[in-house]
């Protein structure tokens, strides 16, 4: 019974506290994100956005509290969760081509001792086509631009065919056309009933891109539908006095 509370939420965070060393990165936060939304997590640098994502994925162990995804702990939900880390988190000089990296998205489903074969490569090609990178399948990843790297990472998550996607700053340092492709793709996922949760840094596009918003500064400032939550007062509380309401 304990393993199946709050199944109505795609992401349910309860009393969560995470610390690195002395200062808490997240302090006693509660979050509920319903399924089928495209949600942004915003907050200033060091507000715990990436930590929240990593804790939700089970990459960081909390000091207190817990996370449930569709009512279950992450360990039981790995197959249904897609993850797009920050692209600066890996060394792109690794000897691999684009198709190789996208196929890695299937490693979790393949099981021990099984190697990816033709069916896996076909799935990876489909995901590459979805991000407009099908012509780059055999390109070395060391030769990609930032926007192309980002699209490869998104294709790698797409190939997982998950129900809930976590993306860590997918729009950081990519050009406008790439951003448009990524957003159209994520909105397409949402329209098919998937839940998309994005750590986002560009306040000017929050209203345009997202329908759900979590405002974070070590504690939760506000959360809910963008239309209700995206207010000058909440922004001031999240970012301090210098923040002004930016509308895209």
């Amino acid at each position: 019974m304990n393993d199946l509370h709050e199944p109505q939420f795609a992401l349910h965070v309860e009393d969560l506290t995470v610390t690195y060393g002395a200062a808490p990165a997240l302090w006693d936060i509660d979050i509920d994100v319903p399924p089928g939304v495209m949600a942004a997590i915003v907050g200033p640098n060091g507000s715990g956005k990436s930590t929240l994502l990593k804790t939700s994925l089970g990459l960081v162990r909390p000091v207190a509290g817990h996370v449930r995804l569709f009512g279950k702990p992450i360990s039981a939900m790995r197959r249904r969760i897609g993850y797009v880390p920050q692209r600066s988190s890996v060394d792109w000089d690794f000897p691999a081509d684009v198709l190789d990296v996208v196929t890695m998205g299937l490693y979790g489903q393949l099981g021990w001792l099984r190697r990816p074969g033709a069916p896996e490569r076909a799935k990876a090609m489909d995901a590459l086509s979805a991000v407009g990178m099908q012509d780059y399948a055999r390109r070395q990843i060391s030769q990609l631009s930032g926007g192309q790297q980002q699209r490869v990472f998104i294709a790698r998550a797409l190939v997982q065919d998950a129900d809930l996607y976590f993306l860590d700053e997918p729009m950081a340092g990519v050009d406008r056309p790439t951003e448009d492709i990524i957003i159209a793709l994520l909105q397409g996922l949402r329209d098919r009933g998937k839940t998309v949760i994005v750590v986002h840094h560009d306040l000017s596009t929050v209203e345009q891109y997202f329908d759900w918003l979590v405002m974070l500064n070590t504690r939760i400032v506000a959360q809910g539908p963008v239309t209700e939550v995206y207010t000058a007062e909440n922004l001031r509380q999240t970012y301090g006095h210098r923040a002004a309401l930016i509308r895209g």
Partner: protein
Amino acid sequence: MGALLSSQIVQTVVLGAALLGLISGALGAFAVLRGQSLLGDAVSHAALPGIALGFLIAGGRDLGAILTGAAISGGLAALAVMAITARTRLKPDAALGVVLGVSFALGVVLLSHVQGRSGASSAGLSSFLFGQAAATLRSDLWIMGTLAAIALGIITLLWKEAKLVSFDPDYARALGLPVTRVQGMLTVMVALAIVAGLQMVGVVLMVALLIAPAAAARQWARSLAGMVILSMSFAVASGVIGALISASARGLATGPVIVLVATGIVALSMAFAPERGLIWRAIAQRARVRRLSSDRVLGTIHALARDHDNPDYPAELGMLQAEHSSATVPALTSLSARGLVREISHPPETTPHWQLTEKGRARADALNRGEATDD
């Protein structure tokens, strides 16, 4: 060479060097990609106190006891580095430096103590500093062969896990792979590879045989499998060539010669590998500069033609040289070779003149629109 190879000792050494190459080449590739080159160095220097202790405990030069001691103290050093990095504010390179220094100093102190105490019986012990290939026994080959089979077997079985954990550990963890265990296994195998090479190459130089073949292989490889196979080939080749060189000349220590051969392969790879090699990149850069200066001369002829409302306007060489000086003639040569300009006479003047071809006009127009591609 035939006489050389028929010698039992040489056969043993060559075979040992080849087996060592298989192990260190394969694991070195993962160590380099995971940024663990220096950890290998700390582990190998930290093997020295274990060697001395193994000797003390076994009461003699028993290879099994010595290698066990080396593996334990090397492994402890690796754990110490990880613990220091995780628990303190010391950066990984500083943690490595501290552990390497302390454990090597401890090793030398223990070594001198052992030698002072037991005299002649421990005379061979200092050979573990720089290796003594000729001391390799036939029975040692079985140990190395077993190690090689275990290492390659594990890598083959856990190939996709090792690959993803090396490239993107956080993502691997999110997929539910046992990342910590795979990382631990790779680190332990690096330590085993180092222990396998102590007898032949020694604690000081062993890291080079781990890192150099992998670094050279990275220059050429386009996939992880390619890199691992190349790295193994380079390491085996270094071992065999080095062993043969040192066997054919008197007084050349085998381990250091093997390392020199391996670093020679690195130097060649750094220079010549396509796309990544220095020479390749220098040539590509020169080609780009030349292309750019050709395009500028083409642009001048094009501008002159436009200013005179004459698409076939013959531009005079001296006029072009006034603008582009010594770059003019090489640029015109290249442009006419590519069919973009042609030389014409323009009587009564006797100096050479140049005009655009149809193709040249098209490229100049494209350049002006900022959409010219490298043709």
